[in-house]
């Protein structure tokens, strides 16, 4: 985990540089669309205390100055499949966002939605010789967590301390300077496929941008779509994306679990295209304009012109009832929600005090989804729109932008990660002594 520490540290430094420069881009590379927000950080002095706008968890100190969206290319299941195509799409979106913003952006924070995320809860415990928790002790207890074998080619995306316990007093968020004899911590680690992360980094580097951070898309959309109470009391955010459906579970304002299902809205479109024998574009149009999940008697009479431009009159003049369309879409959505329910069961969501479920992402706009989801997942279901941030154009406030907006919030107000604490001192000497020895040997 040593090199990981260094890499993440470097990204944090990059992020600090970008904040000093004041402009940073946020890139949400999804399966169906790529969104880019250009953020400008111009200090916290925009609002005064008397305006009644408090610090708002760091959301008031930045502004969106450029937004661009483009159709995603070369992506599948939230992973990069064709590097060159994805690179082109990233170039397109960054160039148009820069054009809107009118400034050059050099640093980008990206989120990755697929790449088979896996959550681990780690625990560590140390004795406190000083009888008091110091900064170094926090780092030490984080380093003392017993790391399981993540598997080959896995990389840690998030490693967040979620809970500290001091002599049996649990639930501390900041144990520093408190007295006690034993410090224990719980850490949530999210790992993803290292190759996918490497591909993403490579693509962004090919676009002459510096990667200043990577986050999980399901985590980011949870940050944007859950309100503060839900994050505190416990909720799950389900991000119905194009290629993947991300699930993240929050409690006490910390993510404790994240996963992704490799089924998404693209699959619904594919079903429609196959079932109605129409092109992908026509199927997408049918899904977005006429799609639904709850069939009523009226839907039988509502005929939808399929359209199309195959050139065959008979084929292009067909029409189906809306009930037919719902009949195609509903099983697939049910399948997605079943998968999500399985994940939530595995995560132990049933044992949470408040079982709020928030649906967001582009797929959450299907009419009737809330009814279906509450029937399948539990009673407390709502459709979540992302938080409103300053300067965001209206067409980017849709649920589909929740991971981009959550990433912007995360950029403005980053979560403490394991690598934000200083490396424990005992890890240093061996390596530096060895380096000094090598230097002497090479020079004398």
């Amino acid at each position, binding site marked *: 985990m040593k090199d990981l520490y260094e890499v993440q540290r470097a990204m944090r430094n990059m992020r600090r540089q970008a904040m000093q420069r004041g402009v940073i881009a946020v890139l949400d590379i999804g399966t169906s669309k790529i969104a880019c927000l250009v953020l400008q950080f111009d200090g916290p002095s925009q609002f005064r205390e008397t305006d009644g706008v408090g610090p708002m968890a760091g959301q008031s100190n930045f502004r969106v100055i450029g937004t661009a969206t*483009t159709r995603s*290319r070369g992506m599948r299941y939230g992973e990069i499949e064709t590097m060159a195509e994805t690179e*082109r*799409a990233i*170039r*397109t979106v*960054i*160039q148009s966002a*820069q*054009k809107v913003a*009118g*400034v*050059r952006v050099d640093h980008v924070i990206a989120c990755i939605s697929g790449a088979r995320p896996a959550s681990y809860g780690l625990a560590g415990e140390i004795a406190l010789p000083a009888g008091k928790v110091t900064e170094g002790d926090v780092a030490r207890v984080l380093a003392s967590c017993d790391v399981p074998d993540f598997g080959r080619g896995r990389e840690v995306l998030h490693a967040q301390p979620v809970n500290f316990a001091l002599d049996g007093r649990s639930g501390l968020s900041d144990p520093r300077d408190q007295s006690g004899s034993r410090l224990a911590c719980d850490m949530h680690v999210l790992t993803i496929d290292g190759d996918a992360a490497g591909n993403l980094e490579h693509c962004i580097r090919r*676009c*002459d941008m510096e990667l200043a951070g990577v986050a999980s898309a399901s985590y980011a959309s949870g940050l944007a779509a859950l309100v503060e109470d839900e994050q505190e009391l416990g909720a799950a955010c389900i991000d119905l994306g194009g290629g993947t459906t991300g699930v993240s579970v929050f409690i006490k304002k910390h993510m404790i679990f994240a996963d992704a299902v490799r089924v998404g809205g693209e699959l619904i479109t594919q079903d429609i295209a196959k079932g*109605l*024998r129409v092109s992908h574009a026509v199927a997408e149009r049918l899904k977005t304009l006429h799609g639904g999940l709850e069939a009523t008697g009226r839907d039988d009479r509502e005929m939808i012109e399929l359209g199309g431009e195959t050139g065959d009159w*008979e*084929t292009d003049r*067909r*029409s*189906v009832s809306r009930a*037919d369309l719902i009949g195609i879409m509903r099983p697939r959505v049910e399948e997605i929600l079943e998968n999500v329910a399985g994940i939530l069961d595995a995560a132990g969501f049933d044992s949470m005090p408040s079982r709020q479920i928030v649906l967001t992402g582009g797929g959450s706009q299907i009419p009737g989804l809330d009814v279906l989801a509450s029937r399948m997942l539990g009673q407390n279901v709502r459709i979540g729109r992302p938080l409103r941030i300053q300067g965001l154009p209206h067409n980017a406030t849709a649920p589909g932008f929740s991971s981009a907006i959550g990433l912007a919030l995360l950029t403005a107000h980053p979560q403490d990660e394991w690598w934000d604490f200083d490396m424990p001192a005992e890890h240093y000497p061996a390596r530096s002594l060895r380096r000094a020895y090598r230097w002497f040997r090479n020079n004398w």
Partner: protein
Amino acid sequence: MQGLNPFQRGQGDGGRPAPVRHVPSRPAPQPQRPVRKDPAPSRLAYRLNRMMLRPLVRRLVHVGLPAFLAALVAGIWLSDDTRRANLTGGLDAIVDRIQHREAFMVKMMTIEGASPVVDKGLRAMLPVDLPASSFEIDLEKLRERVLKLDAVEAVDLRIKPGGILSAVVTERVPAVLWRHARGIEILDKTGHRVASVTARDIRSDLPIISGEGADRAAAEALALIDAAGPILPRLRGLERMGERRWDVVLDRGQRIKLPETGALQALERAIALDRAQHMLERDITVVDLRKQQRPVVRLGLDAQNAIRRARGQPELGPDGQPIAAKATNGRKKSG
């Protein structure tokens, strides 16, 4: 799902011969659809776009490059002598055409209040031959040059509508003659030179003053002459002594030495003395009024000799020495 299978099969099975179909030898060429352009920018375009977003590069391209190109084109175009000459010639011609419009032409010059000499001088001073454009006549410079003429006190130059250059001249009035080592000059009442004369007789109506620096005190001299009322017929002139005070020179070699300050009062005092005691009619060479408290009078030779005769002293010769003593002295010298 009705409507999904538009192809009904089994319409009449066999039996009927296939209809004759005229198959065109080759499918008609379909109009080629325009290939949709990739919306993504190429790597080069992307890099150029990002480069253009740098503020320095942007300013360079938007300001520096056009300025450089304009300068380059202008420089190349102007590097040819003929073109440069054409350009300047063309510009000059335009300026010339505008300046020589009928409305700007000055056709004649009128001079008021000038003597014939000044009139001639003024006309000679005009830098251009009339008719000329009013742009070529610099009135301010011309006025300065005219004012350098000693005889002119003030001049009012203007170009009147109708192309008339009008000059209204105020000449200096001669007030006094000044005789100095280099000749005789006429001065006006402020002491400024008006003209030179060759002889005093040319302007015998003017009083005369002499001595170095007399022109600078001409105003005082004129006041003294004005005040000289009763002795005016006897007045020969005023002489400036050591550039600081005046001597009034009367005929018969009489002189009134006036002080540096209060000369006018001193002269009036002398005139009062003269009026009371006919002082100046007596044999007195010099009346010295330089010290106000103690006027001194130098007697003439005849008067002195009359006193000496009455006292029984030897008389004085014209050189101021006693005659007898002078004789003995001469004898001693010769002996």
